[in-house]
C-alpha cells in the first residue's frame, strides 16, 4: 500500500513531518515546556517577589526540599488540600446525575414529529408568558403562571421534537458556566435577598411545625433511622461487591479503598448518634482491618481479586453506592445532633456562602447544577445508543426486570464511559475551584472554600512567594500524575478497546 509520504528518504520525510508540526510545537515549547522547566526550578528556590524584584535584586537561593516540607508542615496547606478533596465529593453526584439525565433522555420517544410545529407552539407559549410579564403587578401568582406556561411549552416541544429540547435545556448551565453564572449564583445564595432562602423559609417552617407536632420519639428516631438506612445500604453494597468479586476490574486496591470509603459515612453516623469519635473511629478501623485481612487472606476458591476484563468496576459501583450515604452524611454534618432540637425551636435557612460549614456544599450545589447536563451526559447518551439491542432482547426473554436490565446490561456496558468520566473528573476536580472561590467567596469564610488552585493563586500572585506556590503546583501535578497512571493501568483495558 502506497501511503502518502512514503516517497523520499526517511530524512526528507522526517523533515516534512516536522515542518508541519513546527508552528504548534514551537508555541507549545515556548509557553508550556519552558515554563514547566522553570516551574520545577522555582519550586526549589526561595523566590519571593518581596525580596527578589526589579528594585531589590537579592540572589535566588537554592533551598532544596524546604518549600515542600514547609507545605506539609503548614496546617493551612493540609486544610486546603482537604477542601479540594471535599469539593470532589460532588463528583459521584454529578456522574449519577449525568447518567440519570441521559437515561431519561433516551427514554423519550425518538421520533421527531413535526419539528417546525413544535417550535412554533413553543414560541407562542413563550410569547404568551412574556406578555404576562409585561402586564406586571400580577404578584407571585404571575410567576407560577409563567412557570406553568414554560413547563407546558417545554413539555409540548419536548414531546414533539423527540427530547432534543430537553437535552438543550439540560446542557445550558454547563455551556454558560463561567464568571457570569457564578455572579448569578452568588445572588441566588444571598441569605437576605436571594430566592433560594426565600423559597426555603416556608419549607423549613413547615418542617419545624411537623417536628413540633410529632412526639419526642422523633428526636432520636430520625438519626437512628438514617443510621440504619446507611448501614443497610452499606451492607447491600458489600454484598454486591462480593457478587462481582471476579469481574471487578479494579483489583484489590480498589476493593480496599472502597471498603474504607464505605466505613467513612458510618463513622459520621455514629458521631451523629452522639457516640464518642474515638469509639466510632475504632469501630471503623476494626471493620476496615477485618475487611482488609479477609481480602488479603481470602480462600483460594474465591479466585483472584484483580481480574477479568469486562463487567462492573468495583470502585465506580462503590462511588455510586455512596451517593445515598453521602447525602446522609451531608445532612448529618450540617445539622449534627441538634437538628431535632433546632427544628422544635424553628429552623432558619443557612447563610450559604457566608457560613463556614455551608460554603462548600453551596459551591458544590452550584457545581452540580452545571455538571449534570455536561459533556458527561452527552458521552453517556452516545454510550447508551451503542449498547447492542440484542442484549436487552435476551434479557427480556429471560424476564429481567428493568432494574436488572440496568444492573446487568446498561451499567456494565457503560463502564468504560463511566471510567473515563470519573478519571477526567478527578483530574479536573483537583485543579478546580479557583473561579468559584475568587468570584463568590474570596476563598472564605476562614479558608473554607480555598482549594489548591486558589492557594497557588494567592501565593503566586498576591503574597508573591513563588517558591511555595510552585512547590504546591508540583504537589498538585504529582497527584494528577498518579491518577493518570492509575487510569492508564486500569482504564486502558476497558476504556480504549
Amino acid at each position, binding site marked *: 500500500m502506497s*501511503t502518502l509520504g512514503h516517497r523520499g528518504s526517511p530524512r526528507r520525510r522526517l523533515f516534512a513531518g516536522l515542518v508541519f508540526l513546527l508552528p504548534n510545537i514551537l508555541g507549545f515549547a*515556548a509557553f508550556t515546556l519552558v515554563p514547566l522547566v*522553570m516551574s520545577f526550578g522555582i519550586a526549589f528556590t526561595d523566590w519571593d517577589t518581596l525580596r527578589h524584584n526589579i528594585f531589590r535584586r537579592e540572589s535566588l537561593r537554592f533551598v532544596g526540599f524546604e518549600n515542600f516540607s514547609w507545605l506539609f508542615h503548614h496546617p493551612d496547606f493540609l486544610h486546603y488540600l482537604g477542601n479540594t478533596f471535599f469539593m470532589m465529593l460532588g463528583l459521584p453526584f454529578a456522574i449519577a446525575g449525568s447518567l440519570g439525565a441521559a437515561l431519561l433522555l433516551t427514554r423519550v420517544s425518538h421520533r421527531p414529529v413535526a419539528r417546525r410545529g413544535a417550535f412554533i407552539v413553543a414560541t407562542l407559549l413563550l410569547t404568551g408568558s412574556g406578555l404576562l410579564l409585561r402586564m406586571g403587578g400580577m404578584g407571585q401568582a404571575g410567576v407560577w403562571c409563567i412557570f406553568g406556561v414554560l413547563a407546558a411549552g417545554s413539555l409540548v416541544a419536548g414531546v414533539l421534537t423527540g427530547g432534543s429540547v430537553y437535552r438543550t435545556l439540560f*446542557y445550558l448551565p454547563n455551556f454558560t458556566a463561567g464568571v457570569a453564572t457564578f455572579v448569578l449564583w452568588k445572588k*441566588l445564595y444571598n441569605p437576605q435577598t436571594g430566592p433560594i432562602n426565600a423559597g426555603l423559609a416556608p419549607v423549613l417552617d413547615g418542617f419545624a411545625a411537623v417536628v413540633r407536632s410529632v412526639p419526642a420519639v422523633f428526636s432520636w428516631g430520625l438519626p437512628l433511622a438514617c443510621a440504619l438506612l446507611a448501614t443497610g445500604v452499606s451492607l447491600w453494597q458489600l454484598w454486591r461487591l462480593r457478587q462481582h468479586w471476579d469481574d471487578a476490574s479494579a483489583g484489590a486496591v480498589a476493593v480496599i479503598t472502597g471498603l474504607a470509603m464505605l466505613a467513612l459515612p458510618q463513622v459520621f453516623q455514629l458521631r451523629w448518634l452522639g457516640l464518642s469519635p474515638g469509639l466510632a473511629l475504632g469501630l471503623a478501623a476494626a471493620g476496615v482491618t477485618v475487611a482488609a485481612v479477609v481480602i488479603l487472606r481470602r480462600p483460594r476458591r474465591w479466585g483472584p481479586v484483580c481480574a477479568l476484563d469486562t463487567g462492573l468496576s468495583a470502585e465506580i459501583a462503590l462511588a455510586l453506592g455512596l451517593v445515598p450515604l453521602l447525602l446522609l452524611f451531608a445532612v448529618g454534618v450540617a445539622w449534627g445532633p441538634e437538628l431535632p432540637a433546632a427544628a422544635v425551636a424553628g429552623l432558619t435557612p443557612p447563610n450559604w456562602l457566608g457560613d463556614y460549614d455551608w460554603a462548600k456544599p453551596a459551591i458544590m450545589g452550584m457545581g452540580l447544577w452545571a455538571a449534570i447536563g455536561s459533556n458527561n451526559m452527552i458521552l453517556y447518551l452516545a454510550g447508551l445508543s451503542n449498547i447492542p439491542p440484542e442484549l436487552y432482547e435476551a434479557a427480556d426473554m429471560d424476564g429481567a426486570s428493568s432494574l436488572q436490565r440496568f444492573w446487568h446490561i446498561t451499567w456494565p456496558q457503560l463502564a468504560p464511559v463511566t471510567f473515563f468520566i470519573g478519571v477526567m473528573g478527578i483530574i479536573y476536580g483537583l485543579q478546580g475551584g479557583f473561579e468559584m472561590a475568587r468570584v463568590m467567596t474570596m476563598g472564605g469564610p476562614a479558608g473554607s472554600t480555598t482549594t489548591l488552585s486558589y492557594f497557588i493563586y494567592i501565593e503566586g500572585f498576591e503574597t508573591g512567594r513563588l517558591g511555595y506556590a510552585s512547590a504546591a503546583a508540583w504537589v498538585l501535578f504529582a497527584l494528577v500524575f498518579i491518577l493518570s497512571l492509575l487510569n492508564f493501568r486500569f482504564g486502558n483495558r476497558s476504556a480504549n478497546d
Partner: protein
Amino acid sequence: MTEPARNSPYQAPRSGPGLSLLLAVLSLLMIAPFVWMLLTSFKSLAESGDPEWLPGAVRWSNYPEVFKVIPFLRFAANSLVVAGWVTILQVFTSALAAFSFSRLEWPGRDRVFFLYLGTMMLPGLVTLIPTFQLMVRLDLVDTYAGLVLPAAFGAFGTFLLRQFMMGIPRALDEAAEIDGASKWQIFWDVILPLSRPGLVTLAIFTYMGNFQSFFWPLVMMKSVDKFPLPVGLMFFDTEHGQATHLLMAAVTMSVVPLIIIFVLLQKQLIRGIQLGGVKG
C-alpha cells in the same frame, strides 16, 4: 449523538406523559436561575431585594444603565478579539500538526504523538507562575498578545483534528499525490476542506473556552479598558455588587449570547465532544 441511533434499545417508546412531565420539571429547575436572572434584570433598585420574582414594571432602562456604569461593550469587545485570535492561531497550527500526525509518515511519529498527547494531562497551574514571569520578561503584561499567546498552542486541538483527519479516506489524497500535488497542496486543497466540520468544532470549543477564561486575564491585565468580559463582570460585582438589578442586566447580556450560540451550534459541539471523549 446528533440523532439518536435508530437501533437504540430504548427506542421502544415507553415514554408516558409522566416521563415528559418529569423531564419538563427537571429542565425548568435547570433554567430557573436564568429566569430569575432575566426577571431581576428588569427590576428597580428598590425591588431588587424583594423575594417577589416579578418586577413591578419592566425597566428596560437598566440595560443602557449598565453601559454607563461599566464599559460593558469594551469588555465584550476585548473578549471577542482575544478569543478570536486564540482561535485562529489554535485552529491553524493544530490543523498543520494534525496533518503531520495523521497523513505524513515519518520515523517516530506515533511516539511523538503520544508524548504530545500526554501533555494534555499537565495541570495548567504548574506553568502558570513561570509563564507570568516569562511575560514580565517579555514585557507582555497588560497586552493582548500576553493573553493570546499562552492560550493558542496545545495538544488538545491537534488531538481532536487528528482524530477527525484519520476518518478521511486515504484514497483522496493519494489521488492528489499521483497528480503531482505537493504536501502543502494536499493539506490546503484536499484535507483542509474535508476537515471543515472538525475545524468548526475545534473553533467553537476554543472560542467558547477562551471567551470564558478568567484566571489568566485576571493576573495579566492591569488596565480596566483591556479587561475581558469575565474579569470586567467580577470587577462590576465587587464595585457595584449592591446594584443587583444592574448586575443581573450585565449577567444577562453575557449569558444570552452564549445561549443563542449554543442553540445554533449544538450539533457541531456534540459531535466534537464525542470525537474527543469516547475515542480517547
